């Protein structure tokens, strides 16, 4: 399993990996917002956590369709499926998700404080948003893996994966943004939505790989 994680991280950071593109896309989304809503610093600070979350969500969805497709195209997927006795397929998917998140999700979390400054957010809001992104983006990867596995046989499944996965990430978005606001707006709670979001991440960490494994197993037919 470690070998698989290391291999996928290596591929992710090398040329052709999705890491840089994801960060650039995130940056682009955040940059266009002030042009759309106007440079009103107060407004930007208010919508900042939400925009950061939406940007991170879209950027996470961006490279998801390649998660299994690349393995299918070069034939590795067959061997990963065949190794099902030694490494259960759900576990293999889990390892691939971990590697994918480390190369595409974590960089987004790391750059989000800098983008928060661009949005004129106060330190507490930046810290809270970064924390919620750190705990919430894995959920997007895990549930997205299911979409990626379902669409693995489709040559241009990218948009389809996003369309299928978006309804499922709505709860993550809701709790993530709520928690981020809860940290700065007084009556709103932080801990409660944050914990709910963590629970969602754990739940998807179990459901996503299981469903994705089941879908992949049928894909080799």
């Amino acid at each position, binding site marked *: 399993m470690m070998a698989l994680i290391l291999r996928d991280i290596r591929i992710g950071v090398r040329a052709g990996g999705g890491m840089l593109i994801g960060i650039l896309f995130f940056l682009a989304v955040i940059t266009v917002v002030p042009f759309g809503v106007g440079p009103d610093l107060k407004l930007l600070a208010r919508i900042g956590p939400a925009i950061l979350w939406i940007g991170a969500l879209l950027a996470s969805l961006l490279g998801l369709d390649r998660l299994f497709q690349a393995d299918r195209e070069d034939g590795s997927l067959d061997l990963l499926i065949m190794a099902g006795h030694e490494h259960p397929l759900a576990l293999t998917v889990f390892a691939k998700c971990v590697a994918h998140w480390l190369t595409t999700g974590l960089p987004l979390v790391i750059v989000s404080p800098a983008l928060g400054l661009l949005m004129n957010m106060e330190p507490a809001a930046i810290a809270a948003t970064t924390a919620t992104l750190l705990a919430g983006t894995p959920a997007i990867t895990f*549930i997205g893996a*299911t*979409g990626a*596995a*379902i*669409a693995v*046989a*489709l040559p241009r*499944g990218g948009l*389809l994966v996003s*369309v*299928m996965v*978006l*309804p*499922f990430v*709505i*709860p993550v978005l*809701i*709790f993530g943004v*709520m928690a981020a606001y809860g940290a700065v707006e007084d009556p*709103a709670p932080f801990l409660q*939505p944050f914990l*709910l979001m963590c629970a*969602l991440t754990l*739940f998807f960490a179990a*459901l996503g790989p299981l*469903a994705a494994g*089941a*879908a992949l197993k*049928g*894909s080799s*037919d």
Partner: protein
Amino acid sequence: MSDTIAPARRFSLTALANPTRFLSYSGKILPWLGGLSAIILIVGLYMSFTAPADYQQGITVRIMYVHVPAAWLSMMGYMVMAVSALGTLIWRHPLADVSIKAAAPIGAAFTFLALATGSLWGKPMWGTWWVWDARLTSVFVLFLMYLGIIALQRAMDDPVKAARPVAILVLVGTVNIPIIKFSVNWWNTLHQPAAVIRMDGPTIDPSMLWPLLVMAVGFTLLFFFMHMVAMRTEIWRRRIASMRRASAREQRGAAKPVLAE
């Protein structure tokens, strides 16, 4: 291993699994189902228009008689797909996948109706076409899920290969519906605008309940009627496809393996 079970033991479970048998049974039921749903819908329509107007909502309450059944059916359509998805994944029931394929557009149509009539009800009652009310939002997300499933079905050209992925998507959706509903409710209570008239008032008058129930039964029968028609068409579609492929293979010559030392 289902392969090793003797045909006699499988009879009861697979009696309907055989598409040919399904075609013949459903062909007999279909006219009755269609006729019954038509009669009940006509009765329901008559009752809806003769029921007294609500003291609070006035005549707009009549929208409820199509809105509420449509909303019920949007959920029931998804339930039908979820049960069929289990049939595909666990029993590899050949008709289960046909059932999902047939139910998706019909369920989506009822979901669309629930949204549209809800919006038409909201305009005079709330003064706006759309409110991000917890219920409306949940139904809207359900509509998105229907569209996602239909998009996936359309994207995969081979129905046999599409069966499993579609079933998994439906089931993942089933698991997620309560979570989405919970989160949307939660989100809504935090953002609740001061005075929103709730759609599900506890004050449902019996004079309203009866037309509502009759319409709901009529719509449900209509759903199953349409579902059955769509399933039959889908079976024929698949039969045509397999006949075409079989004839293409016959022209190439039959493959017969020969083992030699």
